């Protein structure tokens, strides 16, 4: 019995539309709230009932990027008029700017560690997946299962051994240490995802390249890699999302030089009281890179998440 796919009725379309819009609102609302809070004054941020309409202010961003100290009104008056617009904002609260905050450094740490570990996970994952897909590896199935099994418990369950190991090895609070750690966590996902993609690339392409006079390695990077681009891109997004957002290990293993933004952002609130706008501003900026990265690769991602299901 054959069946045909019919055009959905208007009611079905309407229902689907409501569902999609509803879900989008549900997931985007917290995001919108955070972005909005970043532009509120501290008073507006904690106002009850919550303010939806407010006068935008850059106070949160100024507080995010600066470290300030409170001075007496007399001292403030002695300083003369504020020289910059951010000075003016700060002085409303009887404060002066001492210098930049650590947010910039922490953000850069996140970039280095996040992208570094993503690159390493995808690079190692690709060559491992290629080997598993194409060569006779002894105990192949067992090895693949072993690799998968590293993800069978939450990584944080091994936090204490890792903490002790890192202390012994001098990897605590280093960029290398965090890159290695996130790579180790992401690698199993990366190997499995990429193996699926590479399995889908017919081996004839490489054989054709071999016959056309190329070596195995040339065949790999000239023929297999371009075709695995989709898989590599979507794997990279998954890996980056994990290492970018990771909080628990970052709290545990970093405190200074290699501290990433996630553990840093909440500490903003501790110093100057209830500085929610600064926290929100930090979170907003922190969202941007991954948002841009995902938007740039979204076509690949859309095909990537249906990996194995669709044949070109």
């Amino acid at each position, binding site marked *: 019995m054959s069946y045909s796919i019919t055009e959905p009725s208007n009611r079905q379309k309407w229902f689907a539309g409501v569902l999609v819009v509803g879900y989008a609102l549900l997931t985007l609302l917290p995001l919108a709230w955070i972005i909005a809070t970043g532009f509120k004054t501290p008073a507006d941020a904690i106002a009850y009932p919550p303010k939806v309409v407010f006068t935008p202010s850059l106070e949160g961003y100024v507080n995010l990027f600066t470290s300030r100290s409170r001075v007496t009104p007399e001292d403030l008056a002695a300083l003369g008029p504020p020289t910059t617009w951010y000075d003016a904002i700060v002085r409303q609260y009887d404060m002066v700017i001492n210098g930049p905050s650590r947010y910039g450094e922490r953000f850069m740490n996140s970039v280095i560690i996040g992208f570094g570990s993503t690159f390493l996970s995808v690079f190692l994952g690709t060559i491992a997946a290629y080997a598993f897909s194409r060569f006779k590896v002894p105990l192949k199935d067992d090895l693949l299962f072993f690799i998968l099994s590293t993800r069978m418990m939450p990584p944080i369950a091994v936090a204490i051994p890792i903490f002790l190991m890192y202390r012994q090895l001098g990897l605590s609070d280093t960029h290398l240490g965090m890159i290695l750690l996130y790579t180790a966590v992401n690698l199993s996902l990366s190997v499995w995802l990429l193996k699926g993609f590479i399995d889908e690339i017919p081996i004839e392409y490489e054989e*054709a390249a071999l016959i056309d006079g190329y070596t195995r390695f040339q065949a790999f990077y000239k023929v297999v890699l371009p075709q695995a681009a989709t898989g590599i891109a979507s794997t990279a997004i998954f890996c980056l999302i994990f290492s970018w957002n990771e909080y628990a290990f970052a709290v545990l293993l970093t405190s200074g030089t290699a501290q990433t933004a996630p553990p840093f952002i909440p500490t903003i609130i501790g110093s100057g009281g209830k500085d929610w706008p600064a926290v929100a501003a930090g979170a907003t900026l922190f969202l941007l890179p991954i948002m841009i990265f995902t938007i740039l690769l979204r076509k690949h991602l859309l095909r990537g998440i249906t990996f194995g299901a669709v044949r070109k």
Partner: protein
Amino acid sequence: MAQIVIKNLRKEFGAFTAVQSSSFTIEDGEFFMLLGPSGCGKTTTLRMIAGLELPTAGEVYINGTEVSQKPASKRDIAFVFQMFALYPHMNVRKNISYPLVSQGMPRDQVRAKVQEVAEILGITALLDKPVGGLSGGDRQRVALGRAVVRDPACFLMDEPLGALDAEFREHMAQELRALHDRMHATTVYVTHDQLEAMQMGDKIVVMNHGVVEQFGRPQEIYDWPATTFVATFIGSPAMNLLPFEGMVGNGATSVTLAGSEVQIPKMIGGDEGGLVLGVRPEHVHLDDAAGYRGRVMAAEYLGTTQIVTLDTPLGQVKARLSSSKLVTVGDSVGLRFDARSISLFAANGHALISTANQRVLHHG
């Protein structure tokens, strides 16, 4: 161009033996067919010639050089895959020029060569198109272009027409054959389609279960099958096989089928016990004077001919008769076989040697 010699080639995949021990010679410039059902080892044999599989034992000589353990890239061969294996991320021109680029040929030479090949294959208009949007036939032409462009010692083709529509296949088969006749390149061609093999091949090797069953010119194989497998695999409908108990001696010229005498080619040597008589459907005639009789079960009309199925004492017989011959289902008719074209097989399936097939079958 090249002569290819296969000697005692064997391939095992773990406990499974894909190719038992093949030996045959492909002469320079020949269009050579490797024919057999799926799983018979024909593709494995081809891949061993190509260097995509390394044989467990045996030798492969291309132009007198033993290459069985050499990598594919060092064998100077071109391979056309069933699914074409055009590089999907490159356009037609890049696909065709790819083998030349690997040799480090200068750009302008590559360009000229690609142009020349594209003209031969009639695909100049496609050169700058991506391969994704091409039709099956055009992909096939591009794949051929990629093979032809480097003037290899030989062409190896793994069911190159298998992925095409039936109507287009015929056309492409002619194009392929014409291309071969123009280039005179040694070509080894794998197919499971016996018609394709008969139509295109200068020579055919028939394989089954990893064993070479027969090796020869299409007509020799068709007329004088070496085994009952070849007899049934080649030809549509297949050769009629009638098993009987009996004895043929040296010089015998007839056998007794269900009590009636049937003329056969003069035997050399002989056998007794369970024997099989084989006769092609076109060599079966209806003749009321004949002693061997059968009842008409069905008649399929095929235009100029018809296939008549007859129920006989030793089994079903299909006869290819002229459509003008009137047959009525249910009628009892006499069957006469062309004496000169009959094959006899021993119980083990091997053909018995007669004066008719001794030229073709050298063994025994």
